[in-house]
């Protein structure tokens, strides 16, 4: 990323209260110091326990190649209680997703916020 982005990433991490990493497994594979936003088309939404998974095809602006992101979200029950439905996100939907990226740099992350076809979908409260 460009250097001038660092200040905003810092600001983002300062604004972010300490992540409440209450999951059935450690989320240490994700870098909670970093925030990234991706935009793409949903290939598959797995609305399933223990955590939902969203697979998004993103065109890399650098070379135009398609890259698939695997994004792990909260537990289905947590999202349902926050107002999601099983079909709130469907294959073919255009999504903007804010994530904590994988530490390895591979395309993936943990879900922070998402808009689906231009509409914000509330995350776990």
């Amino acid at each position, binding site marked *: *990323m460009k250097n001038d*982005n660092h200040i*905003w*990433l810092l600001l*983002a991490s300062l*604004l*972010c*209260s300490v*992540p*409440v*990493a*209450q*999951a*059935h*497994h*450690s*989320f*240490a*594979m*994700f*870098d909670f110091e970093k*925030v*990234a*936003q*991706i*935009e793409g088309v949903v290939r598959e939404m*797995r609305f*399933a*326990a*223990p*955590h939902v*998974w969203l697979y998004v095809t993103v065109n*890399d*602006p*650098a070379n135009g*190649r398609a*890259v698939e992101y695997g994004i*792990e*979200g*909260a*537990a*289905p*029950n*947590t999202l*349902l*209680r*926050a107002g999601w439905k099983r079909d709130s996100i469907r294959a073919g939907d255009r999504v*903007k997703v*804010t994530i904590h*990226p*994988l530490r390895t*740099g*591979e*395309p993936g992350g*943990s879900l*922070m*916020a998402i808009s689906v076809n231009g509409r914000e979908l509330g*995350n*776990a*409260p």
Partner: protein
Amino acid sequence: MRISAVNIFPWAAALAVALFPVFVPAGEAQPDKPLQFSAGDSLDDLGPRPAAKPAAASSLPRGADGKPDLTGIWFAGIRDFVTLDDRRIEIPLTPDYAAARARRVQAMDEGKPLPDYVSTCQAFGMPRIMSYGVMEFVHRPQQLWVISEVMHEVRRIYLDGKPHGDWQESTFGGISTGRWEGDTLVVDTRKLRPGFMSMTGIPYSDHMVVNERIRMVNRDAIENEMTLTDPVALTKPWKVVQRYGRKEAGYEIGEYICNEYNVSGGSPADVDPHKDLPASALSSGAP
């Protein structure tokens, strides 16, 4: 491709984080109403803490046996056993067990957390089940059932004064028997398998005995003073105070089939107490 090459919108990211200041990846969200503890008795604080101040005994709901009725849906606050934050707590581990934990903490810091019984959707076991997310207590004079939403795990606490589990080998949850001392339910749990009682991998052996003193602080709050005794993993008994807040009326437990699509927690075959824990963790000795 590296993630840094992705189109990052710094303003949008900062804004998004501001709009979603607390992210709860899974398990269960924060309680929906303030919890009824006295000032300074936060549900969420960490580490050693004083006992909460109880309400008048006459204000507690009571069952047919006249004892406080613990029935209800509760949210486990305080995350001594659960979060990454437990690194801040001083735990009296013996050197071998401190080393076993350090290996897991290091793996986490490297972004490659090692699997455990919970990440692989097997079981919380004791004492971890008592520290995680939403659970329903069904209290009858003969038994108290603790039903966890996340793993569908049921813990039975026998209250009938009879011996139980003689025929059983060590299990994740062990055998729990309880008795009342006034309005305090005193529970002993034995015959545990060795494992890790937290996400950061606080290890314990099959010698561990868990003693709980469970009491209602008021209608909407329960406090559980847990004393963990483990002659090989701990240098001295370790005391943890766990608290539970009642969920609002109408709150329901949902289905949670952990293995429906567990792609990031690892495989049960990857969890091997012989490999992951000191040999002393198993009474049967080294593998």
